[in-house]
């Protein structure tokens, strides 16, 4: 049996109660996936990322969504939020809290949305992420039966973040999940949506998520993807954004966990005044592999994009950054800035970075660049003259390097969480975790 066949076999074992239009989609996804199979390194877009660990794996579908509240508390953000919890891809109602949603906002598990109001969901679902985007979106389309559907009526400003927690458990039999997140932001609405991947440290599951966000005129969406999956987890994600006039999408793609991680982020700026900001951070250790592929399509004049991705790589980790900015013919007076900076903490860590600009308009302001380097020795000296040893000086400067992206994070709980995680996961010799905590205490005092 081929790998695609093996994966699709699990589809037949599913409980069949899909509406017919969903079933048709599943079939289309499955057919596409069967036809293309898993990508190989001969595919240009997967040149640096070998997905055999996924293709050769054996992943069941989770049978339940059980998870103890204490365990959730231990890994979730302490955040006043509207919360939707998925455990290995299954909705857990008890751990979720969606009762206090303000008028004009709905946050619904995908399964319920499909049942209750399939016409409406059907219109948007898959509109941005078709089965031909990649083998993984096809696979997701075949399987997706759970996730989060977020709808904002025009003019609605959501009071608290919408917090989707995706838990991966340490199962005896590894599982796969294919969550689907759909965000429909009506005109001038505003929300913060967090996708937080976390779980038990022994987990070794495969998550294959697809997120679609549609922003109508003037909508503002802050999207956080905080990926703190277990170090054995395999994680593939694609995020697809469609932006109307004067809308703004702020993306924070923060990767700390996972053994094999691939994220595709695609935004279409379709009308004047649309603006996208991409901030990314990846901090890799051991043999972690994280691949970020980003694409901004400037399809209309006077659209704006700004991208800053930072990578910190230790041990024998491998990072990939492929950032493409595409400016359509006649999309004049656009501005597009892109930068990727990487810090290598070990000789054996590796980064492949490729910023790309493809421009078919002539009146544009664009810049792009990539740097990979070591720490500023002048600063190391200055810190040493205060009695700080070389290791800690380097630790502080590494934290500072991450800080330049984290400064953009407006949500304190996430900024602190990541700062602590970076400080705590820095090689022990840096010993910064305690330092960060004190500094926070001083601030709060």
């Amino acid at each position: 049996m081929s790998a695609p066949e093996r994966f699709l076999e699990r589809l037949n074992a599913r409980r069949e109660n899909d509406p017919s239009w969903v079933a048709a989609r599943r079939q289309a996804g499955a057919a596409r996936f069967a036809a293309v199979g898993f990508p190989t390194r001969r595919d240009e877009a997967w040149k640096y990322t070998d997905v055999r660990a996924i293709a050769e794996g054996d992943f069941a579908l989770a049978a339940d969504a059980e998870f103890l509240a204490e365990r959730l508390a231990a890994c979730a953000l302490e955040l006043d939020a509207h919360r939707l919890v998925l455990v290995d891809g299954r909705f857990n109602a008890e751990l979720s809290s969606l009762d206090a949603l303000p008028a004009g906002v709905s946050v619904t598990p995908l399964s319920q949305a499909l049942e209750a109001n399939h016409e409406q969901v059907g219109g948007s679902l898959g509109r941005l992420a078709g089965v031909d985007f990649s083998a993984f979106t096809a696979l997701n389309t075949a399987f997706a039966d759970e996730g989060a559907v977020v709808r904002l009526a025009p003019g609605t400003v959501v009071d608290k973040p919408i917090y989707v927690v995706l838990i991966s458990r340490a199962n005896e039999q590894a599982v796969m999940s294919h969550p689907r997140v759909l965000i429909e932001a009506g005109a001038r609405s505003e929300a913060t949506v967090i996708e937080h991947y976390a779980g038990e440290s022994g987990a070794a599951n495969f998550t294959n998520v697809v997120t679609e966000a549609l922003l109508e005129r003037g909508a503002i969406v802050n999207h956080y993807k905080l990926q703190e999956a277990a170090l054995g987890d395999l994680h593939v994600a694609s995020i697809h954004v469609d932006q109307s006039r004067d809308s703004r999408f702020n993306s924070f793609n923060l990767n700390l966990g996972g053994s094999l991680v691939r994220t595709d982020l695609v935004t279409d700026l379709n009308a004047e005044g649309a603006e996208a900001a991409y901030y990314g951070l990846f901090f890799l250790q051991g043999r972690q592999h994280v691949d970020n592929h980003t694409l901004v399509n400037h399809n209309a004049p006077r659209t704006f994009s700004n991208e800053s991705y930072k990578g910190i790589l230790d041990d024998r980790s491998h990072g990939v950054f492929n950032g493409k900015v595409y400016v359509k013919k006649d999309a004049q007076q656009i501005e597009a800035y892109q930068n990727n900076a990487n810090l290598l903490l070990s000789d054996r860590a590796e980064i492949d970075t490729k910023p790309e600009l493809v421009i078919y308009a002539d009146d544009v302001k664009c810049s792009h660049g990539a740097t990979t380097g070591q720490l500023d020795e002048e600063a190391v000296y200055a810190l040493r003259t205060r009695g700080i040893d070389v290791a800690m000086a380097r630790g502080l400067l590494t934290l500072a390097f991450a800080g330049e992206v984290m400064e953009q994070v407006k949500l304190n709980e996430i900024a602190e969480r990541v700062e602590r995680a970076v400080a705590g996961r820095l090689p022990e010799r840096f010993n910064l975790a305690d330092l960060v905590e004190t500094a926070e205490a001083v601030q709060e005092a």
Partner: protein
Amino acid sequence: MLEVKDLHVTVEGKAILKGLDLTVQPGEVHAIMGPNGAGKSTLSAVIAGKDGYEVTQGSILFEGQDVLEMEIEERARAGLLLGFQYPIEIPGVKNIYLLKAALNAAREARGEGEIPAPEFMKLVREKSAEMQMDPSFLQRAVNEGFSGGEKKRNEILQMLVLQPKLAMLDEIDSGLDIDAMKVVANGVNSLRSADRAILLVTHYQRLLNHIEPDRVHVLVDGRIVKSGDKSLALELEARGYDWVLEESVA
């Protein structure tokens, strides 16, 4: 406390210090004056341990220890601290991190434990207030976006928290307005005690009006050519350096 003997230093093959002698006793404040390019910053950089300076002859002892054999951070932990003429910006490293890491390093070297968090918080808040710095500066990156005067105050803040035995302050007065000068001078004066010493590099008498030196030295072309008490500074202010040079040649 500090004993510099016959110090010869070259930078990229060029002789900068050419046989410099200087002795500082506990409790004393010494001022070093001299024309631009004489080697004042070079002297303090060599004592602090900056790379790129080659000591071709002579010795530096601090409390009997051979400074040139010590790592940069060991010198600081031993209580030898340099306030920079041009403090650099360290983007992203919060002041509070620097202060805590530096203080704990010094405490550890003295065999003391880490400072408890509440005590540390109290200390840094107190010292910031003394330097008339808003506590928000503690959360800002070291010197990033600070004005010239704020950078200098920040150097002194570090001194106040770390309480060095010997503080070497390189042109701590440059770029300060009159009020800031007083704040900085008060900070420096609070470091004075019978078992501590201060080495000031300056071009101006006005700093010495606030921080009264016990000894004043004139450094010209890599050597100390004249030393005296505080009246020497006044004389230099009035007459410039030429007469000292002529005197020393004669």
